[in-house]
């Protein structure tokens, strides 16, 4: 088996997940030895139009022309992996799904906004089949390295299924909810090694909902700590606005 051909594709976003690939300083040369990156506009000038054994996709589909682009990438790829909150859950820009977009366009660009192509932001899995998702804002670089190792030997990457609280307990962190802080750990998927709480900062939910998420229980807990319904809603719809499609979220009354 030759080295798998990899295409790294950026859609609308901050490029942080692509940057986090470059941030794998200690492992970058080893990873480059395992794979053949044939497309990566952020890092290369000579870029192929496919096909790819694995497409790695960052960013959100935020304008209509990007829908065609992702479909073409899917057609030319055996495996498609999305990386980061924008690709997996919509990311921060998807907050617009819950607001008056015309008004938002005027705030950002002034009066002439007719030509600004802005669509509702859905996860990439809404448009094409996605074989694996690496969530987070940004995606965790070591999780990416593990995923590449798995893909290089023909396996599907495994993403953890526990809540951030689980990793916090392993690290023996002080519980921030017990300190009265509005932490999203109980409803958020682990895999980040509880990074933010380990630094005394609340989990902001960037990795999206944990399996069998119970938003009702988190709502009650934050309410008890003094959060208003609007404050709770803001925290729930932040990095992963696609949570609005989850039944336990829809049952809440904000």
């Amino acid at each position, binding site marked *: 088996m030759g080295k798998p051909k990899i295409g790294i594709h950026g859609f609308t976003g901050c490029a942080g997940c692509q940057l986090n690939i470059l941030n794998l300083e200690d492992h970058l040369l080893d990873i480059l030895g395992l794979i053949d990156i044939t497309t990566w506009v952020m890092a290369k000038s000579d870029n192929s139009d496919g096909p790819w054994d694995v497409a790695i996709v960052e960013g959100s589909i935020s304008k209509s022309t990007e829908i065609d682009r992702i479909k073409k990438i899917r057609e030319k790829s055996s495996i498609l992996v999305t990386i980061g909150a924008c690709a997996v859950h919509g990311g921060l820009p998807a907050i617009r799904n819950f607001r008056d977009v015309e008004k938002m366009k005027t705030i950002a660009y002034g009066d002439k906004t007719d030509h600004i192509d802005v669509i509702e932001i859905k996860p990439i899995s809404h448009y094409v089949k996605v074989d694996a998702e690496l969530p987070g804002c940004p995606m965790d670089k070591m999780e990416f390295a593990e995923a590449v190792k798995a893909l290089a030997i023909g396996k599907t990457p495994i993403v953890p299924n526990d809540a951030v609280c689980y990793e916090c307990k392993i690290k023996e962190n002080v519980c921030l909810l017990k300190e009265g802080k509005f932490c999203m750990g109980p409803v958020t998927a682990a895999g980040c090694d509880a990074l933010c709480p380990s630094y*005394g900062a609340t989990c902001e939910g960037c990795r999206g909902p944990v399996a069998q998420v119970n938003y009702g229980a988190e709502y009650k807990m934050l309410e008890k700590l003094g959060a208003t319904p609007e404050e709770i809603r803001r925290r729930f719809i932040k990095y992963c606005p696609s949570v609005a499609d989850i039944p336990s979220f829809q049952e809440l009354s904000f």
Partner: protein
Amino acid sequence: MTTEEIACKHIARVEGHGSLYVTTKDGQLVDVKMSVDEGARLFEAFLVDRHYTEVPEMACRICAICSASHRIVSTVAIEKAFGIQVDKQVTDLRRLLIWGEYVESHILHALYLALPDYVGHESVISALADFPDVVKIALKLKKLGNDLQILTGGREIHQVTPMVGGFSSYPTKQALMEIKDRINDARPDLQACVDVWAGLEEIPFHRETEYLAIRREDEYALVDGEIATLGGIRAPVEDYKKFITERVPDYSFAKAGELNGRSFFVGALARLNINNDHLSPFAKKVIDQLGIKLPSFNTFHNNAAQLIETAQVFDMAIDTIDSLLASDLEWHEPEVVPKAGVGTHITEAPRGSLVHSYEFGSDGLLRKADIIAPTTMNYTNMEDDVRAFFPQIAHKSKEEIQFDLNRLIRAYDPCISCSCHMVEVK
């Protein structure tokens, strides 16, 4: 009469998605359009009604490569709106975070993204075969910059510890001492990269545009200062709107920055041109070796300027760490009382001046945000540079022209996803 369009689609090795279109008639340039293909994210709009505790954390997501600068300028703008003063430890930790960002960002751009063109390679990956030592040294330096950001901010990008009023945790003195040693040990590595750069062929170019940066009289300004131009403007940051305007070019709806109606340059070269009286010993040594005379009006010098500034922040980081080691470094929970008000701050992101200006209500919710990123400011200057540079390369083949134009735009280290004000050109 033959009209031809030379398109540099999807300019590679920059952050974000942009294209350049040049129209020529009988070999003469008649039109230049810099187009941004990045979808609109509407940051200034979705930040409205968000709480001050989360605004810097969200605003830093405008751009990953300068997320630390976005985070800190956003935080300081909020503190100004609320009238909060922070202590020297907090200021020092923020500075150290930014110095880490400078090392990482400048090394990434100068050596990973810009250098391959100069040594006949399409990427750092292909350059690895011919220049393994330089690539490995660059990786080591980039990691040092990132480790400084991790030490102070908790993560390389989209840091987690900075808060309005302070930090959620501090590094230990032990960790500060260790990284201080690593910075000093890395000086020969940076010197080795400078040696490589000093051997490159210089691209001649001269266009006397205006340069803008923040300036201080007591140090090389990177995080705080007043607005300054090479032409002599001095003004408090709150007055930015008097000078920096956003024009709507008649060929498109793209917004582009102008200074008093003309193009201007922000970035490493602007800072060197304006603030070179405050260069540190290491930076002076590097600039002497590279033989750059200031002020320089050659945009291609911006990449060398990034290496000079990397040496500058090496020295500044040692000073900042010494200042932190001399303090008690005892963490305290930030105390913040929100109040209604306006706060404006300008910092120097690695790729140029960055404005965040906010209006807050007494409920701590953001009412209004104005964010101007460096690449927005450089937009008009890029087009004017292309016009001035084109006659120099007009005799070349289309492929060579595309190569040279890509290299000119790349010299800016443009950060296209940052420029949230830019719109796609139809």
